């Protein structure tokens, strides 16, 4: 079980920030928080510069860590991978070393180990898309450290949007798909997954995925159709990250909703009604 997050939020110093393949990677030093687990996330807000001319961002933003490393002086260095899609991620991406960032967390639950997910599991299949490669990178490192075999499939729109791969995955044992065929497999990462599952014994598979909703839903369907246990790290608009606002609702399979921040962000594929949360029909 993930350790408890420090109560409240804290100011952490940003120590690095650089562009990487269409995304931004930045690091900060968290002296107070526990070691984060794969799948967990933080609520972040750049200090002093949060809130733009538009009056947004106002709420902190949920961001998964892409790597952590123990700091010699205590605490952890946390690396984040940012896709600048709006005012919040733009402010986070604009932070420069020396600036400070409000940090709360780590929040949320973690991925199960393959044997927890599927007692027959031979190893893990990790399927990441776009910015969703961040939690996959953390999970993979954890599996490597524990000597659990894993294969990684990553998908991107194009080469220009494939930041973090070299940095967080290295080159080995990672298969890439690019929608525009600019490199690797031309097409969706789910094509790679299907190939892989064809050759495989489905009964020994355990799939983990994080990426855009449409990709996650495709992965989910593929696995459910084949009765393969799958865990997905989902996204949803979040105001608080610690269960206070009930805003991060994701429809459950049997009806009703789970609070993604505390009941997720990692969910089992059969636990939810859809990975296309906002597009769900009713409640």
């Amino acid at each position, binding site marked *: 079980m993930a350790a*408890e997050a420090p109560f409240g*939020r804290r100011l952490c110093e940003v120590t690095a920030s650089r562009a990487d393949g269409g995304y931004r990677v930045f690091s900060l030093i968290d002296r107070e928080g526990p070691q984060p687990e794969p799948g967990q996330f933080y609520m972040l807000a750049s200090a002093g510069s949060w809130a733009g001319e538009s009056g947004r961002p106002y709420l902190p933003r949920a961001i998964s860590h892409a790597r952590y490393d123990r700091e010699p002086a205590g605490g952890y260095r946390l690396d984040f991978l940012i896709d600048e899609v709006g005012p919040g991620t733009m402010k986070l991406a604009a932070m420069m070393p020396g600036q400070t960032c409000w940090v709360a967390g780590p929040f949320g639950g973690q991925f199960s180990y393959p044997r927890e997910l599927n007692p027959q599991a031979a190893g893990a299949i990790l399927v990441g898309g776009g910015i969703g490669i961040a939690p996959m990178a953390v999970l993979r490192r954890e599996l490597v450290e524990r000597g659990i075999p894993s294969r990684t499939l990553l998908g991107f729109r194009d080469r220009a949007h494939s930041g973090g791969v070299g940095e967080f995955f290295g080159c080995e044992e990672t298969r890439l798909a690019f929608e525009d065929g600019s490199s690797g497999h031309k097409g969706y990462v789910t094509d790679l997954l299907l190939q892989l599952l064809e050759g495989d014994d489905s009964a020994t598979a355990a799939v983990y995925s994080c990426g855009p909703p449409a990709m996650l839903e495709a992965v989910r369907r593929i696995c459910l159709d084949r009765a393969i246990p799958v865990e997905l790290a989902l996204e949803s608009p979040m*105001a608080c990250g610690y269960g206070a*606002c009930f805003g991060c609702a994701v429809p459950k399979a049997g009806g009703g909703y789970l609070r993604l921040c*505390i009941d997720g962000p990692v969910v089992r594929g059969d636990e939810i009604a859809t990975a296309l949360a906002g597009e769900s029909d009713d409640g």
Partner: protein
Amino acid sequence: MADLPAREALATEICGIPLDGPVLNGSGTFDVLAARQVFGDVLIDEFPFDCYVSKTITMNPRPGNPPYRLWETPSGMINSIGLPGPGLDGFVNRDLRLLASLEVPLIVSVMADCIEDFVVLVERVAAEDAVDGIELNVSCPNVHSGLIVGEQPAETEALLKALRPLTAKPLIVKLTPNVANPHEVAMGAEAGGADAVSMINTVKAAAIDPQTSRPWLGAGAGGLSGPAVRPIALAQVRAVSAAIEIPIIGMGGITDAESALEFILAGARVIAVGTENFRDPKAGTAVTEGLPAALARRGFGSLAEAQAVTLA
């Protein structure tokens, strides 16, 4: 600048419930059970509020509204949560057991769409020793019933008249801001026997999906909260406080001690922190810690001195 008032100078009360300080939480903006799971026992030891207000509970379990439930706005947010919850039984049998262990007084918020259900809710909740007061949510913009009662002084008065005989515990009416004259509804609440009003609930608001050009919120529309609504809340608190004798629990965009104190000066007895909890889980503590300096900056030696101010 006066000397910094001591922590004791923040002591106060609401409806006879003694409080170490004036900082409550807004109903539905802090889930103690979830927070304890996330932060551990330190949450109880360093509890950020002087009194805890539960999320609004309803007769039957409710799933809440379909996603999306949140939309960020300039200096605020819209929510359409839709009162998800375990229903009365679930609340009393499970949640309340845990809430009873809090060291601060407990106010339970309830909502129903008819007087009969309100009666059941109030009787059952009031019978619990752990409960110090009951807040009647007649104002949630997401559930049809609330709007109607809370918009009408006479309906509000009638509801209170029906509930007042059921308990000696404080009954607090949560007012909606979405009326022309909130003081008239407050006067109805007072006439019906309410012990206090709390205000403001969220302001009706809407947002449009940037991709689909359809309503963003699953429920179509929702309620605005946060600093954006603070000036609206202050005007309403001031107008209501001039019209009634019972105390006001003031809220709406409070982010720090300074904005909390503005509500006290506008006529609130105590205040509640809502949306700011989402930005900072310890926002309540931050308000409390800032109050002595904020009071001193305006020349007050204690909270009571600020509470005694009456604006023209």
